[in-house]
């Protein structure tokens, strides 16, 4: 049975989540998830690039020969990354500075090229858009999961709003690179545990 449009959208959110299941795009996941706002912005920026590049790749799929497809995909992705780079600068220079070179590095996020090659180039623009939207939201959700935990434990705040009193001693390691690995490991452990529990036969 052919997958429905809703399957295309939903699979990226949980079943094939790009971070927790496919373990793709780890560089920004670990580096930029030191606060919830950075994680959300990077997630939305990646989703924006993913959706628009998938839409364009799917729209031009009959026009692009197989021999030059990767060059064309990279060109399309790089253009949308440049667009998102300008847009973030126009919205907030502080946010742009906080995300640093990671915005430019969206170009080499294997998630985007993987979806262009594996899905968008073989499906209609609508299905490619739904797939990209699901994957993008799944990526944003995963980044937000990491960013929220790291900011709460590392700074005692969420989206800059202090959650604990003066007595709270922040776990500085959580906002350092090591904290990214610890948090990702904890989330992977939790999600794998939940999946195994659901897969276990009832009454066993």
């Amino acid at each position: 049975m052919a997958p429905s449009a809703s399957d295309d959208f939903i699979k990226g959110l949980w079943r094939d989540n790009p971070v927790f299941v496919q373990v793709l795009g780890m560089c920004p996941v670990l580096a930029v998830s030191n606060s919830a706002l950075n994680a959300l912005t990077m997630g939305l920026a990646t989703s924006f690039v993913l959706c628009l590049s998938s839409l364009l790749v799917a729209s031009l799929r009959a026009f692009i020969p197989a021999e030059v497809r990767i060059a064309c995909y990279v060109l399309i992705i790089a253009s949308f990354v440049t667009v998102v780079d300008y847009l973030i600068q126009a919205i907030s220079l502080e946010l742009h500075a906080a995300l640093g070179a990671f915005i430019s590095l969206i170009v080499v996020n294997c998630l985007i090229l993987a979806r262009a090659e594996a899905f968008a180039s073989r499906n209609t623009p609508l299905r490619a858009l739904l797939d990209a939207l699901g994957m993008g939201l799944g990526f944003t959700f995963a980044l937000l999961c990491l960013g929220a935990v790291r900011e709460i434990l590392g700074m005692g705040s969420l989206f800059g709003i202090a959650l604990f009193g003066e007595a709270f001693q922040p776990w500085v390691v959580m906002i350092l690179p090591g904290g990214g690995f610890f948090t990702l490991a904890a989330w992977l452990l939790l999600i794998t545990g939940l999946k195994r529990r659901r897969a276990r036969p009832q009454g066993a």
Partner: protein
Amino acid sequence: MRATDSNSAFAMYRALVGTGCVCALLVVFTYLLTAPLIAQKRSAALHEAVFAVLPGTTATLALHANDQGELGLLEHGAATPLYLGLDAGGRITGLAISAQGMGYQDLIRLLYDYAPDRGRVIGLKVLDSRETPGLGDRIHHDRAFLAAFEDLQIPLSADDGRVQQPITIRSGPHRQPWQFDAITGATISSQAVARILSQSSALWAPLIWRNQETLQGIASRAEGARHGP
């Protein structure tokens, strides 16, 4: 066979050129749309940074240099790399100078505070860079690195005010007053900062040295205008 090859080559050219044109239009359109907004935000950020690198400053004046090397007040709103800082008593707190140069992979924009009476750089802030995350981008926030710019000498010739020793990274066991230590793992970015500072100070420090009286005059007039007739 030859016709198929030719068709295939044409299809590849068509795809690459066509995709390139679509992408170029997209980037140009976005640039035109966002450029004024980005310029406005950069100008506001630069203004904030000027106050940040000039401690004790309550007012700033934008300056420019004419072709004869004379400094003067700049008309309102125009872009300039030179700002004169004044404290509450109308005394000069320093000159904030913006400079830029190529870093590891893109431009580094920075602002430094030059105290003309002492001939020293007394503060530095990196405004913008795209240096490698975790390595080169430490020029933004590495405390030991930034602390070196709180007292960095620019030795000038007593005759014509030319820079005698350019700012460099320390190479020997002893640090000279015009040298600073590079960040381990960010040598290229540190060298870029040294080069930017060295080139900028070679241009501005002699000019400021020759215009010290002019600067005092500008500060006095600004103080007079502040208190009114």
